[in-house]
């Protein structure tokens, strides 16, 4: 088995990577040192819970309100996806569905699953769980796509007499979900996934 910094009583600086004897601050770059991210699971849970609660209004409230001569249209994320699907842009519909609905949901599910598996001190499929976390960290930012699209639609249509487009409260909630899930992934310490499998070997 591979030895760890923790099992050798050493610490790695989270910023510059210097491996050293336990100390308060890194002598090289002065970052604060910890064996593991402090309160990693508690912080992740709190942020995940907040994100899960915001996910509901983010999907139910309109993200974009279009007023034109023909009336007012209130688009939620899902109705935007359906509009693309029925107007012949299936690829675009699939893209927006993936980044705006699927990714946040899978992110909430995956991080909760990883946190639960650490609470249960699971030793199963450690490699797969490590890979899952890597993917979650990588794809999370792409969910901001819809917020950008709404912002651009509002600004670009503003000065024409086509219609008036306003950002709905759903857009802000959705942006909140993206920020909260990114913070949750950031507080999560992937080394915890490996720590329980370590415990048995030592």
């Amino acid at each position: 088995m591979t030895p760890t910094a923790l099992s050798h009583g050493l610490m790695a600086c989270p910023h510059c990577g210097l491996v050293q004897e336990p100390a308060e601050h890194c002598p090289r770059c002065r970052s604060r040192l910890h064996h593991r991210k402090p309160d990693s699971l508690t912080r992740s849970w709190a942020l995940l819970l907040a994100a899960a609660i915001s996910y509901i209004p983010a999907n139910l409230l309109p993200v974009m309100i279009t007023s034109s001569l023909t009336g007012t249209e209130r688009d939620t994320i899902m109705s935007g996806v359906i509009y693309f699907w029925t107007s012949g842009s299936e690829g675009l519909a699939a893209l927006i569905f993936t980044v705006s609905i699927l990714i946040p949901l899978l992110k909430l599910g995956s991080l909760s699953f990883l946190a639960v598996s650490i609470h249960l001190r699971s030793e199963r499929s450690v490699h797969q769980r490590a890979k899952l976390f890597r993917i979650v960290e990588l794809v999370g930012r792409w969910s901001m796509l819809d917020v950008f699209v709404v912002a651009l639609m509002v600004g670009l249509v503003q000065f024409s007499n086509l219609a008036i487009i306003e950002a709905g409260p759903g857009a802000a909630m959705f942006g909140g979900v993206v920020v909260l899930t990114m913070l949750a992934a950031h507080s999560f310490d992937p080394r915890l996934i490996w720590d329980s499998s370590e415990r048995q070997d030592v």
Partner: protein
Amino acid sequence: MSINPGDYVACRECDGLHSKAELSVGAEARCQRCGALLYRHPRMKAEHLLAISIAALITLAIAHSCPIVALQVNGIPNSATLIGCIASLWREGSLFTALLVFATALLFPLLELSSVMLLVLVGWKAPASPLRAMLSRFVMALRPWGMTEVFVLGVLVSLIKLSHLARVVPGIALWAFAATAVMVAVIAAFDLRQLWEEGT
């Protein structure tokens, strides 16, 4: 057996401890336990980082001063910059959305690029100064929050959406944003810890 902790490297993802080895140019070292990247011998040097960050700051400035898209409705031309879009959001009361877009598409990329530029310069002039450590930590903290590449995709999606309503002509800003996104990705591929290794 006496060990010098500085000769070791710990995996960021699983804490696996490995002794450092010399790598050939472009080669990378991966963790034996989890397969995560430990470090690589960079092809880029600090001076490349400086050049790319300055170039990206220039394209970012172009991206923010030129229209993203020019619309033509009933023959009346109409165009908007990103700052104009953010101002529209702010005016209609979507403060949080406006702030979020301002931060992720403008402020954070700008801060990240200028900090990388300063970091290289400070690293040359005063490698031991606390400012260098501060800048380095600042860049690392900002990295996940600058979303230029996501924004470029957002522009493309809005262009398609708008093309249902009017004649759209992609503006210079779209190309400038795309160029910035590529350069930010090149900078992000550079492991900042490498700058610390060279200093010791």
